[in-house]
């Protein structure tokens, strides 16, 4: 696939996207008209203060929820026009998601968790297992395949989650605060891993984070504030403290 087509295939585009939730009696406008285009492959961060709409944006890209207004395109496909079945296929094949809480199924082994998307897609566990084993091996979990999540450390669980997200080779990998439950060493390993995944597999990896340390591993940072895009900037050799300053500037200028 030529680079431009590949970029389109793994890019995401949001136009005038709005999303509101009901929180008790209160209506919370999480996204108030997001316009954002991210070209893949690459490793991008979405940052912003709490309640700025980062996770909501990621959930919409993953097809976990539907926007109230606006257009969302992932890999050149508009999610707004998809029915439930097509959206299910999108989640199954076109996006991989990594959650802060890992979200591994506690009753399945590491290997079964990884093969889950393929099993849901109609392949048998035996058919999907070789690739899943390779992924787990690559991620340093060769000896943990038959363990259930409660026997794995947080870092190991998150690596299992990454393997699961990569199994179907989706063009877009979405990570929502993936190191929120990990220690610093494990977090650093994970960020490097995601950067490597984006580079070696020509994928677009979009990571929601509020940590400058994490964003320092990315190519570009997109900043959200109060449900809108406050700005974007290239990381390009910024160290974490410089990145934090840049982030503050972006937020300040957006006021």
């Amino acid at each position: 696939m030529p680079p431009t087509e590949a970029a389109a295939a793994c890019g995401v585009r949001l136009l005038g996207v709005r999303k509101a939730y009901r929180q008790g009696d209160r209506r919370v406008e999480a996204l108030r008209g997001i316009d954002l285009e991210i070209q893949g492959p690459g490793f991008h961060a979405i940052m912003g203060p709490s309640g700025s709409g980062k996770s909501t944006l990621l959930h919409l890209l993953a097809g976990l929820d539907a926007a109230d207004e606006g257009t969302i395109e992932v890999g050149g496909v508009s999610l707004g026009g998809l029915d439930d079945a097509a959206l299910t296929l999108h989640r199954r094949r076109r996006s991989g998601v990594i959650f802060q809480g890992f979200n591994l199924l506690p009753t399945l082994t590491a290997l079964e968790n990884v093969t889950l998307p393929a099993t849901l897609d109609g392949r048998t566990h035996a058919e999907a297992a070789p690739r899943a084993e390779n992924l787990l091996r690559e991620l340093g979990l060769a000896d943990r395949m038959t363990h259930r999540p409660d026997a794995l450390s947080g870092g190991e669980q998150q690596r299992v989650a990454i393997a699961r997200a990569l199994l179907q080779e989706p063009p877009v990998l979405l990570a929502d605060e993936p190191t929120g439950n990990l220690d610093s060493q494990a977090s650093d390993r994970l960020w490097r891993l995601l950067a490597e995944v984006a580079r070696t597999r020509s994928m677009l990896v979009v990571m929601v984070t509020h940590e400058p340390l994490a964003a320092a591993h990315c190519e570009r940072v997109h900043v959200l504030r109060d449900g809108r895009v406050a700005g974007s900037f290239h990381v390009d050799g910024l160290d974490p403290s410089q990145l934090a300053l840049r982030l503050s500037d972006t937020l300040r200028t957006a006021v």
Partner: protein
Amino acid sequence: MAVALASALVTAVSSGMRTGQANLEARLERLLGSVDARLVQQTGAPFDDAILREMTLWPGVRTVQGRLSGSLTLIRADAGTDGEGRIRRTTAQARGVDASDDPRLKGPPLREGRPRGSRMEIVLDPLSATSLAVGVGDRVRVTRLGEPVDLTVSGISDRPMLGALQRAFVEVDRSLLAELSDRPGLLTQASIVLEPGTDIAGWCQDQASRVPEGLLLEPAEMATSGMDRQVGAARLGFLLACSIAVLAGAFIVGVGMTTSVSELGRELALLRCLGASRGQLFAGPLLAGATLSLSAAMAGVPLGLAGAAAVAWWFRQSLPLGLVPSGEGIALALGASLASGVLGSALPAWQAAATQPLAALRSRSRPPARRGPWICLLVGAALAAVEAIIVTRVQDPQRKFWMHALLGLACAHTGWFLLCVPLLRVVASAVATPTSRMLRLPPGLLRGSVARAPYRLGLTAGALMMGLSVLVTTWSHGEGMLGEIRSRIRFGDAFAMKVSGLSTAEQAALRNLPGVRQAAAVGYLPLRVGGEAGLGIQAVAPPGVICVGFEPDAFLAMNRLEWIQGTPESALPLLRDGRGALVAEQFLTARGLQVGDRIELLAPRSRASFEIVGVVRSAGLDIATQVFGIRSVYMEHAMSCVFLDLATVGRHFGAREAVLMQMELAPDPLLTDDAMADRVATAAPGAIFASGRAIRAAIDDVGRLVLGVSGAVAFAALLVASLGVGSVISAQVQGRRGELGVLRAMGAARAPVVSLILAEAGVVAITAVIAGTGLGWELAWAGRVLFADLAGLRLAAIFPIWAWLAGCGVHTLLAWAAAWPTVRGLLRQSPRELLSQPT
């Protein structure tokens, strides 16, 4: 809700029983009058009414009234016919009573008209009034051999219409009935009213020396002792049902509270972190269970009363007193609910008290200990075996019954309840692979989700099994009994009965009726057994015996005799030549007599000795005599029956009259029961006709009704259990929202996710089906053993396959129905919303 419905059930059943008992007592009082004592012949035969005059002189006697039982064939005095041109005719049981001013000896309550005022008046019951199409003031004619007698209808009694087997009943003057039935100066009962404050039992004892030989003076309440025994038996059954209801309620409350404690695990741990003591955490679920159960009972009791009131209203004709609430039933419902609440919340309370403070800080709950299901298996199997040990090892039937009622039932239920935990894992393992393949889900998902909550799901299945076990037990017994009755009951197609006896001419006329293929005359003669001395039961066995005279060949062609000892081949020749006698099985226990022994029978002026050639039981004859009331007339004070050739009875004791004629009819569709009744009335005026075909149909109807009622109760139990476990299944599904969200996020469509939840509910249902079938079959087996030990009734081991299949279907549907509202709610949520719950 389940506890509320269980309370409602207990209240409704107890109030229903109380209502039935009160109404029955009221009807008995109407029927027997509220007299204090009565004098009857020990054999039930009529006796001289001269004693009435003597009795009025006895100390303490206020009034004495003579009564005579018999039957009358009535037609309209204007010879009115029905729509088909046939003369309207009815043969009614008749009671002749002496006139009395005592209000306690008044006649039956009247629906219309007034009590009899003269000798030539009659009070009809609604059945006879309807069949004759007459009302108050009309005249009816008594047909008999000789001049007919016309009587004026003074009133119609307020007697409920009870269906096909009910006989018409009329009341006339005693002297008139004595004249019409050719029994002048005789009575069958003297009813006695004593001065107020008299100790009736003591008075009866004091006057015993004044009573001529052969007569029996007894308190009138003894006449209702049969009913009291029945009520006692019903109460016992009710108590057993209550104990099962308490267990079921406890299981349901236990499962619900366990779920609640599991859900609140983190909060409880947090409370421990903040300084809550184990005692405080223990008391919480206990108080919650008790409060919940009592609140549910508060709602259930009025609901049950309303249900009983509705039933009483529906059967208002049979229940003139209407609803009579049972105070003790209501107290029992409240107590049982409280007990089920406390029992059921004991384990969750213990679980809550055992919560470790650190549990609040754990991100996920610890998986259950692996040894838990094994412990459940061992303890459950041991408890289930207790019932089997009681039934097979305890020799004394009475002790066996009480151990079964007080210990075995509870152990069996609790044992199978616990067995559901390991059983659930086995079922999950068996169905996981095919189900997962079908749903394209990893097999470990279904197996694993079951393994994560073995107690919650297993015990849910345990609560759900109760309904099916009740269904299997009651239907197995019901079908067994019905089969037993059907196989034992074989008798003629038609009967003619005349209390005063069918003369040989009448017997011949009946035999020669068109359509009668075969006939067998049966006579009943009260006799005494010679050689009274005995020990134990033999010593207290009454000396009276009913001699049943029958024609062996014709009788055996139409009836089925069960030969407990002896065979027809060896017995019949000796019966025919008058040397042998058959005896009823009660002789085996009461007198220790058996085949080969001799029995001496005594009449007032003759005696004869016979060799016992067989010990038999005749269910068909029992039922026929019951229908005609012969049992109450003849057998009340007799121990049992001796069967002799009818001609032999005539030869030795001079009684050639038959009381009953059994007839086998030709298969002719035109030979209806009405037509046959007409022919019988013509051939033997005064004889009551009864249709054997109708009796058989009625027995079948009653059997089906009993099965229907027990089935309805079982299905109600199923429904109650399902409602109870619905919340648990719902909580289980809700607790796994996050997991389902992950599945949806990974690309699972809605359908397999829904199917997964339904498959889990299905696993619970299958487990409940297996356990319910096991428990039901164990209790059915125990019941069969107890029936055999206590009642001598050997029921066939019938597995009620159709009822069971229906129960399984209802089980599964109800389990799915219980899960469905939650599933529907989940379907409306986006994967993001589902993911907001932890996995």
